């Protein structure tokens, strides 16, 4: 069984992200593996462990994205591939999906490609489904559970209203949500292995596809306006007094 997991390198969730001179900056905050992708790696590893197979991690990004791949290797992935080409600087999710689909094809013989729910930089949450469409594979997205049995994927999708039980024939694309269960920590051995790993970098020429045109473009990026609020602390000599004052304020806001 051959499983691929797609991981992205992003600024840490605690980073103070801001726009300076028209560019996105995050000070000296570290770049990390997209937190949602850790769940994807966990699901990929568990599927490989149960079904007897290996996991290859793929990241599309610049040289520094190798760090995300090393994290995936340290968690237990067998191999990692970076897709890096200067022509890919201005990709939209449609383009990223075409490139990731081409990389998954180049890996060859893949039964399952696992994605995170969302990348926390662009916050798009569409790449898994879009890649599935390019590959012509089923898109079993937002899975809270995942099992593979004789060529069939079974899982539970987390929708707003509850869980939808789904089945799809392999090869398939899956994306994983947090209910799946906590991702494992990299092991000491894993970290050592990852530090030494040679990570090949593929270009568009290696993938044999043209540069995808970007339909969606970020015209402008800006710091959000400061939240215009006046803080008002409600005080009183008893919980009842505080509660009554607060209740009056809430009623005045006309939000109920």
């Amino acid at each position, binding site marked *: 069984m051959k499983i691929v997991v797609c991981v992205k390198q992003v*600024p840490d*969730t*605690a980073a*103070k992200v801001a*726009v300076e001179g028209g560019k*996105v900056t995050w000070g000296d905050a570290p770049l990390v593996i997209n937190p949602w992708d850790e769940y994807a790696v966990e699901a990929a590893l568990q599927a490989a462990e149960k079904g007897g197979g290996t996991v290859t991690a793929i990241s599309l990004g610049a040289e520094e994205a190798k760090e995300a791949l090393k994290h995936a290797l340290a968690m237990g992935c067998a191999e990692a591939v970076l897709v890096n080409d200067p022509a890919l600087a201005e990709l939209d*999710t*449609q383009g990223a999906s075409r490139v990731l689909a081409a990389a998954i094809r180049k890996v060859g013989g893949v039964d399952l490609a696992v994605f995170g729910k969302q990348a*926390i*930089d*662009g*916050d*798009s*949450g*569409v790449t898994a*489904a*879009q890649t599935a*469409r*390019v590959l012509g594979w*089923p*898109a079993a*997205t*937002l899975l809270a559970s995942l099992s593979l049995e004789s060529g069939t994927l079974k899982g539970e999708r*987390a*929708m*707003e*209203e*509850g*869980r*939808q*039980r*789904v*089945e*799809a024939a392999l090869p*398939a694309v899956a994306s994983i949500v*947090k209910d799946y269960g906590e991702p494992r920590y990299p092991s000491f051995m894993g970290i050592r292995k990852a530090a030494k790993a040679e990570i090949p970098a593929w270009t568009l020429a290696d993938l044999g596809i043209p540069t995808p045109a970007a*339909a*969606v*473009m970020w*015209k*402008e*990026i*800006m*710091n*959000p306006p400061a*939240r215009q*609020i006046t*803080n*008002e*602390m*409600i005080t009183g000599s008893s*919980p*009842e007094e505080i*509660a009554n004052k*607060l*209740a009056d304020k*809430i009623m005045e*806001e006309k*939000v*109920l």
Partner: protein
Amino acid sequence: MANKVWAYIDQFKGAATPASWEAVAVARTLANQIGGGVTAVILGSGVEGLAQTAFHYGADEVLLADDPALADYRVDSYASTLVAAAKVGSPAVILFPTNTRGREVAGLAAMDLESGVIPDVTEIVLEGEQVVATRPVYAGKLLAKVVCSARPQMVTLRVRAFGKPEMDASRSGTVTKIAAVTDGDKVKVTGYSESEGRLSLTDAGVIVSGGRGTSNRADLQPPDDITDEKQKEIWRAQQGFKLIGELAQTLGAALGASRAAVDAGYIPYSHQVGQTGKVVSPDLYIACGISGAIQHQAGMRSSKVIVAINKDAEAPIFKLARYGVVGDLYDILPALTKAMKERLGK
């Protein structure tokens, strides 16, 4: 025809999600500006009744694929049916609500139509027929103005970001039936289980949330048969969440939580608000025993009125709060529930 604005009506088991009507109302505003009509696209089985409501919210026309084969939501057939219709109708814009289904139907359609999707938009303006969409990125730490150069421009609208849609029951329109395209069904649906909270967090107008503070009340004694420290903590948190639940019930609110509360096993993950939980923008958000970490803020900072109840006057949540109470949630909440009941005549 190229100035038509379409709205995709998302429904679950025959009921439209309220955000779908927000999409119709925004489509109406855009269409008025570019001089085109509004088409609502309704897919499902036994969903013809939704057409009337779509007219009331501003649609001129409904494209209806009503077919037993569309009974359960599955992304392939829903997207393919929409794509087939869009190839005929060539809309300039298709608006979707941002939810689990809206995002992926839009995503797939964007691939088939060789265009693009702009997800989770909070503001939209037109420059000619070009949509300029504003969307929060980096968990709301930044805003991006985004355009789509291809057609149709597919945009998913953040739920509740565009205000309450207006309804006019005297409006009507025409229904055109379209065929379901179901041959591409790759994902089979074998069943459903409904989740605990029936009120969806993302649709909720009022949310009361609890954090780690729910388990922090020293004089609260767990029953003797609970000996494990972890279980004692969970038991305490449940007493806290009971108080939160009572306030929520009084206000008709949905129940939210911080990640710390979820990770500690106080409440299921489906309630988590934040960067790796749900992004919500209710009219009223009451945070109880939540410190207000940046990742929590990412999920709730666009709420209209924020109330914070926290023992620690230095908690970052107070910086976001319109009203703050420095106090113990175990003291404040029962009194607040009582005070709200009196005012709401309950």
